């Protein structure tokens, strides 16, 4: 994949940071607003795909390391299962932080309310874990496929 024209690259430079910020907003506010880990991770991965098609695989691999994304993916899934195991005093996947007064432990106001970040128990932690896992899994899929296409094209030309 060659890199695309200067117009596309300039617009990508302007916009991809905002896409990544919006994705992390959707992940972090998963317990208050529509969305969550899966959706936010997909938004961040779409920013990676935008970088990939506008700059080409060779230039993007300098910025996004496949090994780092692999480690993030495994770490996200491990953090998710670990958070589930932490509630094992009562049951698997027990929400032991909700309404406890510590981290994310404030009681939610019943009914319509503007929302408090410090509520939700283990739900925000699991959102962050699943978001990291999804963004790195989709990102690494796109990166590996693009570099594989690049390698095949180079081999056909030689």
């Amino acid at each position, binding site marked *: 994949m060659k890199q695309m024209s200067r117009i596309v690259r300039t617009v990508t430079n302007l916009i991809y940071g905002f896409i990544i910020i919006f994705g992390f907003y959707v992940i972090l506010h*998963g*317990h208050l607003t*529509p969305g969550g880990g899966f959706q936010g991770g997909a938004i961040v991965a779409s920013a990676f795909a935008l970088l990939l098609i506008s700059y080409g695989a060779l230039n993007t691999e300098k910025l996004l390391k496949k090994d780092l994304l692999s480690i993030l993916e495994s770490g996200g899934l491990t953090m998710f299962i670990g958070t589930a195991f932490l509630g094992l005093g009562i049951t698997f996947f027990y*929400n032991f932080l909700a309404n406890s007064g510590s981290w994310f432990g404030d009681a*939610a106001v019943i*009914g319509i309310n503007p929302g408090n970040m410090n509520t*939700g*128990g283990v739900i925000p932690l699991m959102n962050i874990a699943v978001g990291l896992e999804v963004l790195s899994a*989709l990102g690494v899929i796109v990166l590996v496929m693009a570099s594989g296409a690049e390698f095949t094209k180079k081999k056909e030309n030689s």
Partner: protein
Amino acid sequence: MKKIIFGIAFIIFFSFLIVSAINMRQFGEPIFSEMDDYFIENAQSETGANNVVTSIVFDYRGFDTLGEATVLFAAAVGIIALFRRVTK
């Protein structure tokens, strides 16, 4: 001949579908709603999250989300293994 038999069978099958679609409950009025009512009443006070959908996905039905995350992980691992460099 074959076409006529297939056509008659298709019409009979389709009429069954139409009849069952007409006899279905009204849209948005489920027959058994005990679990929905429980989630709407208690999700906010039990989990403390405003978003009831997220509280179901990550708390009440956590095993389902664990399966989804595992499926995505397995897909990524399979694609990495498929696109590995075999030759130099």
